[in-house]
């Protein structure tokens, strides 16, 4: 069985800040990480590998620096790493990204199960997974909490509004993994990292995957960014400091004033 995990390198958005003066992102000193949702998806794939002996390949579309997350994935236990990197990909929206990744997966061939995180923490769209499934013409199972494989069937427990449902689909299929809220990311040991250097790692370009340039980059993207700006600052309200008793008194006054109590 062959599992392909799509992973992305993202800036750690919990550390990104906006310069209030210029309204632009301050990126200096912000580290790049493996998208936490993809990190979890990879760990789920590695668990399936343990249970079934499956081969796990990771594919990442990104600039040359994204090599770091592919190597991290290899160190965590993936068998084969592919970096899909080409200037032609720059400016791709989720459609063009899904196209590129699905071409790469076609080129990889023989993939039974594709896994990825529900979303990337920089774009937050959650669209790429379903986009890949659609372009490959395979069923999708999104927002999965748990996943297992029996023969050529994948079974997953997924989130629905107000609860869960368990679904099944036959291979090939795509699953997107939701992040469990007590999740602690696993990091490889030094030995795993050194061993990963020997694992197959390739860099693929537009030519390698026979992608049609008209479907890539800015020109291939149906959506485009009109502009990017800092969220408008709200007007700062009134702040009170005082003794606990004073605070309580003022709080109650406000509740009455604003009609939240009689």
């Amino acid at each position, binding site marked *: 069985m062959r599992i392909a995990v799509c992973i992305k390198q993202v800036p750690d958005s919990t550390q990104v800040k906006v310069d209030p003066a210029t309204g632009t992102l301050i990126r200096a000193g912000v580290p790049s990480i493996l998208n936490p949702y993809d990190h979890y998806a990879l760990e789920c794939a590695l668990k399936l590998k343990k249970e079934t002996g499956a081969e796990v390949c990771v594919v990442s579309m990104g600039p040359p620096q994204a090599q770091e997350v592919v190597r991290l994935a290899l160190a965590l236990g993936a068998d084969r790493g592919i970096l899909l990197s080409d200037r032609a990909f720059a400016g791709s929206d989720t459609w063009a990204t899904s196209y590129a990744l699905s071409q790469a997966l076609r080129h990889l061939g023989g993939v039974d199960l594709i896994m990825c995180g529900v979303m990337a923490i920089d774009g937050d769209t*959650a669209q790429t997974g379903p986009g890949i499934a*659609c372009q490959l013409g395979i069923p999708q199972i999104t927002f999965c909490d748990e996943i297992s494989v029996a023969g050529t069937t994948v079974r997953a427990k997924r989130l*629905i509004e107000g609860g869960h449902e368990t679904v099944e689909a036959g291979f090939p299929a795509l699953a997107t993994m939701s992040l469990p809220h007590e999740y602690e990311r696993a990091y490889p040991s030094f030995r795993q990292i050194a061993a990963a250097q020997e694992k197959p790692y390739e860099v693929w370009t537009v030519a390698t995957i026979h992608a049609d340039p008209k479907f890539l980059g800015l020109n291939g993207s149906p*959506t485009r*960014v009109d*502009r990017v700006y*800092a969220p408008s600052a709200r007007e700062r309200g009134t702040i009170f400091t005082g003794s606990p008793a004073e*605070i309580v008194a003022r709080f109650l006054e406000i509740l009455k004033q604003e009609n939240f109590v009689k």
Partner: protein
Amino acid sequence: MITVSEKCVGCTKCVSACPFGATEMRGKKAVITDKCTLCGACVEVCPVKAISIGRQELTGDISGYSGVWIFTELADSPDGGHSVRPVTFELLSAGRGLAEKLGEKLCAVVIGKNAAVHTAELAAYGAEKIYVCENENAEHYTTDLYANIMVSLIKKHKPAIVLYPSTYVGRDLAPRIASELYVGLTADCTGLSIKEGNLLQTRPAFGGNIMADILCPGARPQMATVRPNVMKKNEPQPGRTAEVVCENVAVDKDKLRVRIVERHLDHRHCGGKIEDSEVVISGGRGMKDDKGFKLLAGLAEQLGGCVGASRAAVDMGLHPKSHQVGQSGTTVSPKLYVACGISGAVQHVVGMSGAETIIAVNKDPNAPIFNVCKYGFVGDARQVVEKITESLKNGK
């Protein structure tokens, strides 16, 4: 492609503006490297307009597309039937404005086993035309069935805009359709308007740190998803009529590749969904432990509200994830939101900034929550909550 012209004066503003570290200075000139994703942040910030992005517009045939469509999501009712999920009405309200601006029709699409029963309600919230698609396999949402039907309907009727709720259903369905049709889809829009005949979609990115305006000028329909509690819901007008069109799209059973094995709906905590509550008392790390959250429940009870939590508190196990407020939780827009011991990081604020009145209590006078609240109190949240609850109980 992106170019830096001779106009560059070496001010380095583009270097710090780039979210991807793709700009560097070589000598006195800015140079853009491989890491560039053409997001345009540097173009914005260059004081001499030295940077430009050239592109060929993706031009599909956009003629003949008309109408604003709202995808109707049905929720399970306790009695075994279905009801229209309230977010649909919010979308209809937002869609009304767009349709009027365009001079086109506002329509609703409802798919289900017994979809026709919902037309009156949809009409009451403004739908002028309702496409009803009844299918015996459509009792519960599955991707293949719903996507097939929607794609069929869209190809046949050519709407200019289609809006979906950003729920588990909408976020599963909309990208599938967008991919199939090769059209643009923008997720989690917080703002929708018309600009030069196109749908201008505004959404947060980078965990809420930045806002982006998106357009799809060359493809139709333009599609977007919107979270519940973001758009204002208009008052319904019961008795309003709409044109009902029955579209029964046949889908081969073997095209339905994902089988539902079982479904399980959890019981709600704190009596009621947090999204529907008019008063939300929310706790963060500053509430420290279960005792702290019990205090919040006490206050919520007094004020007729529900208890929410920041991600930090949920991660500490103090409150269920179903009531997590924020970027990776739920968006709420109650009349009153009280943030207790919550620092107010962007990821949280994104989930509650639509509240009418925000009150915050935090020990740290520099907590960012104080930048978004109407009233802020610098103090120990636990103490304050406890004392206020007591006072309210004693009828003060």
